[in-house]
């Protein structure tokens, strides 16, 4: 295994592991705060029980997120020292701000988890709100840094060094706004659906259980609203990528030849040698609409770029389709549930719909993993798009497969433990 491949795999494993817990850290506090707000308003102890149970799950997920995030902040330097030596001063600012947001989140999560009997109910609820807001801010700041790697701004390159560095201009990079919205909605949708699946499972056994009915209602509201908004943000981010990173966009779509009135290709097999995507389901004109809001617009194909600047097309294209497929399914299931809820004026609790929700539980997380694959693999061979190649950034340390195997086994082990603990924790009804 080459050092570059080992480093890339270690980064992929670390990000792929961390993002699940980071998403929980962003979205779980919102669920907790909603449940506790309902308790304050109604004085119904079921709501308090729900907030507490969700808080306990959050504690486990947040702790693993905090330590795996620490690993990432070191890995930036351990694996990509030349990248950090170059980029640290340019895109470090959002990381510094993220540090403070994360600080706030950790402090008030401590108050929230351990302070039920130590602070007033109102102060306790506000702690939950602060955790939810600072969690979302943490996520936004990290995504700003990633946006800069996709569309670097705020510096010039002079003799291989960065000059005229302007960290504010770097934060104002064109990729950030749509990436932030897309990531936050993804977090709420994925977590809402995952939590909904758990409570749907419990309701299938005990359909009148008030605890699980309320839990499902909150989770469906949060997850459903986000899932319905996500296609709009997806359209926004697609147009942004088409404009600022046409090579990534072409890879996402398996789009080799530049053409006007281009179709969207769903699935298929990308054939690099023949420069075409075979056996794909084609929707005429749709790609031109997606990229430029005009059915006859020309969409730049991969052929316009030297092959050495292509990302791995097959991986990016399939990951993109997987992400979109999951997102469409979640939005459709939400619409269906909303229609049934509106008709019956109650929680959509038909057994078949609960089964459908259980089946949809993992879709959001799968979409997030696939989406980050699109962003990160789609940026290859660059670590900073158009500025620095990933191969030039990797650590000179020999034998990088050793830390890769170490970190991966650690995370596989932790992943099993978390699933085991949460399984015991969540698949239980109070009283």
């Amino acid at each position, binding site marked *: 295994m080459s050092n570059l491949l080992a480093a890339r795999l270690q980064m992929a494993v670390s990000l792929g592991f961390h993002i699940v817990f980071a998403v929980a850290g962003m979205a779980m506090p919102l669920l907790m705060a909603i449940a506790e707000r309902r308790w304050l308003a109604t004085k119904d102890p079921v709501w308090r029980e729900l907030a507490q149970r969700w808080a306990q799950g959050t504690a486990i997920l947040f702790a693993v997120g905090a330590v795996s995030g620490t690993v990432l902040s070191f890995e930036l330097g351990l694996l990509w020292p030349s990248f950090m*030596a170059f980029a640290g001063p340019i895109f*470090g600012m959002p990381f510094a701000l993220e540090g403070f947001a994360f600080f706030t989140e950790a402090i008030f999560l401590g108050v929230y988890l351990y302070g039920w009997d130590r602070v007033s109910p109102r102060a306790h609820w506000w702690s939950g709100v602060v955790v939810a807001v600072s969690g979302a801010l943490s996520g936004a700041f990290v995504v700003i840094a990633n946006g800069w790697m996709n569309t670097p701004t705020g510096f010039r390159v002079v003799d291989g060094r960065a000059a005229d560095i302007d960290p504010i201009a770097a934060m104002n990079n064109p990729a950030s706004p749509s990436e932030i919205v897309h990531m936050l909605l993804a977090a709420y949708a994925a977590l809402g659906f995952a939590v909904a699946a758990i409570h749907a499972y419990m309701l299938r056994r005990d359909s009148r259980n008030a605890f699980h009915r309320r839990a499902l209602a909150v989770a469906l509201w949060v997850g459903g609203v986000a899932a319905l908004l996500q296609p709009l943000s997806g359209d926004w981010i697609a147009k942004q990528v088409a404009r600022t990173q046409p090579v990534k966009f072409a890879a996402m779509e398996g789009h080799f030849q530049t053409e006007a009135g281009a179709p969207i290709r769903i699935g298929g097999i990308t054939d690099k040698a023949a420069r075409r995507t075979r056996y794909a389901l084609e929707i005429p004109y749709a790609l031109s609409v997606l990229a430029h809001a005009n059915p006859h617009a020309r969409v730049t194909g991969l052929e316009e770029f030297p092959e050495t600047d292509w990302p791995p097309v097959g991986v990016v294209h399939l990951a993109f389709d997987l992400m979109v497929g999951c997102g469409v399914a979640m939005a459709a299931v939400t619409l269906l549930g909303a229609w049934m809820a509106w008709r019956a004026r109650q929680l959509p609790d038909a057994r078949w719909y609960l089964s459908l929700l259980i089946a949809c539980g993992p879709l959001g997380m799968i979409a997030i993993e696939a989406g980050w694959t699109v962003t990160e693999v789609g940026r290859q061979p660059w670590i900073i798009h158009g500025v620095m190649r990933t191969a030039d950034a990797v650590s000179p340390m020999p034998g990088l497969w050793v830390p890769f195997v170490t970190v991966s086994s650690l995370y596989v082990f932790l992943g099993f433990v978390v699933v085991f603990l949460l399984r015991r924790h969540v698949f239980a009804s109070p009283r």
Partner: protein
Amino acid sequence: MMPLEHWLAGAILASLTAYVLGAGADFGGGVWDLLAFGPRARAQRTLIAHAIGPIWEANHVWLILVVVLLFVAFPTGFALLMTALHVPLTFMLVGIVLRGSAFTFRSYGRVSDARQEQWGRVFAVASLLTPIALGVCVGTIASGAIRTRDGRLAVGFFETWAAPFPFVVGLLAVALFAFLAAVYLTLETDDPALCDDFRARALASGVVVGLVAFAALALARRDAPGLYSGLAARSGALLFQAATGSCAVGALAAIWQRRFAAARVLAIAQAALVLWGWGWAQWPYLVPPDLTFEASAAPQAVLGLVLAALVAGGLLLVPSLVYLFRVFKAAPHH
């Protein structure tokens, strides 16, 4: 007016100090969990868990701040350190991951006692090994073994840290963290027997800190000559040493006399002075003997912005931290 890079070097040292005083003591608590014995072993472990629970994650964030400030303000120094110290840092990270997750798994496991005990053991062992790795990294930097040529690492990935001096500094870190934890814990309980347990531990670990510190100084003469001359020969060095020593002796005397609040202040001062002594002895080098803070600093405009962000963030952070500690540390609890 002090140059901006000096302010940022100071901010990094301050964050590291906060990390040592907070998270260091949390690791020290894990060490006492590992070493819990006698009729009150279970009560000792429970006290430690209660003391750490609400605050360890906030304490942990100081380390992230150190890392971020390093790469924003001193990017080439950061890249050099992450390359040279790849191996011990990876050990430290594994320890950090296992300590944090095992502690949470134990607290929230809702599983049998036997499994909780296993997680308790993982938490405790990781609490012992992580500070050693951290100390090894600090010791390696201080020893001056990380050499560069044309800005690139000019030494191997093992011989810089796989040496006696870094490991003695690792032991010093463990002893210091355990000492801090024991001193803090005397104030966390109103059970006199438990308080006595940690008083005895504070006295013992305080003596160990002194012994290991002398061993480190003696070794430094040969293995870390730059540090040694900074600590021993610079003007004012004697004063610095005297201040650290008086705090150490004063802390032990206060523990002996059961004046625990005073002991806590003195122990904090002692730990901070040990860190600042290191920083002061290797000033103006970030990675002695080849890389200064100045030479690795980011452009002034960046440093100014980062400082502004630090001030603004601090205005948010300090009241929040005060609130956290007032909620959980105002009165002893069980």
